[in-house]
């Protein structure tokens, strides 16, 4: 089967613009995209850089955008990606700096950000005299996240990383989840763990767009894990002060009136004694007023008392 590979070329260390190289390759019908890349390197161009390891879809080393969709080259059949034409485009995954061609910087993506999650267990009682038995039900989700390939596909789809590369990203957040949800860390240690995931550029910088859920090769639903951790953080007391003010104002507003008082939310989020923060709101408020967009008097809704009763009872349940 004759196919055309169009492969991204880039060599930041030696400068120069990124470009695409084109190769004609003859491959068996059941070949993978990785087979083709290896054949190119063996027979046509030994300067082509790409990464691969297990060659059976279990290590996550070979993540590449194939025809703009991020996948593993070792498990993607050429027959499946050439249905619309004989061209196979290979480009590095997005949001992670490229070292060369299809090889991205795992230090910057994975290791630095994973390390920021302090990925080691710190139980309250490190030298317990007996076995620490944990019910299966409490470990099932945690164990599942341990199967993360750390391949980068979830970060590849992230909406925040293109505008803020320092965001820890869904990959590191899944690693955080593995420890936040581990029942062996308790008490003060659990609070320290939550502070780790709630650090600046962490849990609260996610926009919960659920893009990462659809990207994960292991089906770990990183976005949902982030939202679960937010619920845990809320129950323990949100550690980011501004975010905590925002949540408290939001909930109080719904409790008092049944719906959201946007004006109050904006001011209480900044902090009513934070004059600098409040002053920053003035230009936006003036623009809204001149356009007749400023919300009017915030009235209590019919049904608000029932809504308040329900929320207060739910708060007690935590």
């Amino acid at each position, binding site marked *: 089967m004759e196919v055309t590979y169009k492969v991204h070329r880039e060599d930041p260390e030696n400068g120069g613009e990124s470009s695409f190289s084109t190769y004609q390759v003859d491959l068996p019908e059941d070949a993978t995209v990785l087979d083709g890349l290896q054949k190119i390197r063996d027979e046509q161009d030994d300067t082509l850089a790409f990464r691969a390891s297990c060659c059976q879809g279990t290590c996550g080393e070979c993540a590449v955008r194939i025809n703009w969709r991020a996948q593993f080259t070792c498990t993607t059949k050429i027959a499946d990606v050439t249905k619309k034409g004989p061209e196979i485009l290979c480009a590095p995954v997005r949001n992670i700096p490229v070292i060369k061609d299809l090889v991205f910087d795992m230090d910057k993506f994975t290791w630095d950000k994973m390390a920021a999650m302090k990925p080691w267990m710190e139980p309250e009682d490190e030298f317990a005299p007996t076995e620490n038995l944990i019910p299966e039900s409490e470990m099932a989700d945690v164990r599942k996240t341990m199967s993360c390939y750390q391949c980068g596909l979830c970060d590849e789809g992230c909406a925040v990383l293109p505008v803020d590369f320092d965001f820890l990203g869904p990959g590191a957040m899944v690693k955080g989840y593995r420890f936040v949800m581990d029942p062996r860390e308790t008490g003060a240690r659990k609070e320290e763990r939550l502070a780790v995931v709630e650090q600046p550029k962490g849990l609260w910088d996610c926009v919960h767009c659920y893009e990462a859920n659809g990207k994960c090769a292991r089906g770990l639903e990183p976005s949902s894990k982030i939202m679960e951790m937010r619920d845990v953080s*809320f129950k323990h007391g949100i550690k980011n002060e501004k975010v905590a003010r925002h949540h408290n104002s939001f909930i109080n507003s719904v409790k008092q009136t049944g719906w959201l008082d946007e004006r109050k939310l904006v001011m209480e989020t900044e902090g009513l004694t934070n004059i600098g923060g409040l002053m920053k709101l003035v230009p936006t408020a003036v623009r809204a007023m001149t356009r007749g967009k400023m919300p009017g008097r915030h009235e209590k809704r019919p049904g608000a008392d029932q809504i308040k009763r329900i929320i207060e009872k739910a708060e007690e349940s935590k």
Partner: protein
Amino acid sequence: MKYAFYPGCVAKGGCPELYTAAVKVAEKLDIELEEMSDVACTGAGCMPTHLSDPINARTFAKAEQMGLPIMTICSTCQGVFSQANHRLQDAEYREEINREYLAEEGLSYQGTTEVKHMLWVLFEDLGVDKLKSLIQRPLEGLKVSPFYGCFLRRPGPIMVPTKEVGGRRGYLEDLTQLLGAENVDISGKTKCCGFPVLTANEESSLGMVAKHAGESKQNGADCMVTPCPLCHLNLDGNQPRAESLKGEKINLPIIHLPQLLGLALGFDADEMQLGKHIVSTKAVNDKVDMLT
């Protein structure tokens, strides 16, 4: 066609023009709306689920009593509702919520309420043929960038659960074309607008506004259309701040979905309250005026 109408907090607060446009457009399309005025905010993804699921179950139970599906005009409301309704399909969980929270008010949710965004209602209930027959002013020459944002598309298994509704991945482009306008594609049309991170990281949030609106402008769009008022608050309301941050002028009008529809149905810019936007919609108004 009748719906329990759930406008959401923002359409009754910071984006009053959305409420006005949606009500006018629905009337023109023979979509009867009975507004739900005694139900709670969805929680908007800001309230934790143990607080928001019970109040959303109450809203669904009320609609069930009315015997009507719910129509939303906000992607965020829709997303939170769809996810809550998905969890409430678990009979054991639903019964716990009924017993603990709803019984005292004499309510019980049976899990049957359907919740649909107006964009879905247009294609799945009203139908393309009916819609086409009501267009009075095809928006020829108007270049529009569809912007979905996050919640109408994801999580995929919940928002687009079956092949039958697979069209939801393209309704906004389909509608823009159906109304006679020209689609201007941008790479981030299904990405986040930045609103949810406005509190925790303002710079990141405004960066997303500049990225999406800037790309749309660069690709030649006259305006962007969005089915989500929170996207609108950020992309329109914070566009001047995003411009200051990036040091570049963007000046791209952001139009609510019902407003774009309304213009094609024959309403004028004043009736659709385009004057309430932060970024001037003059470029759009002028083009539409030339069509009449």
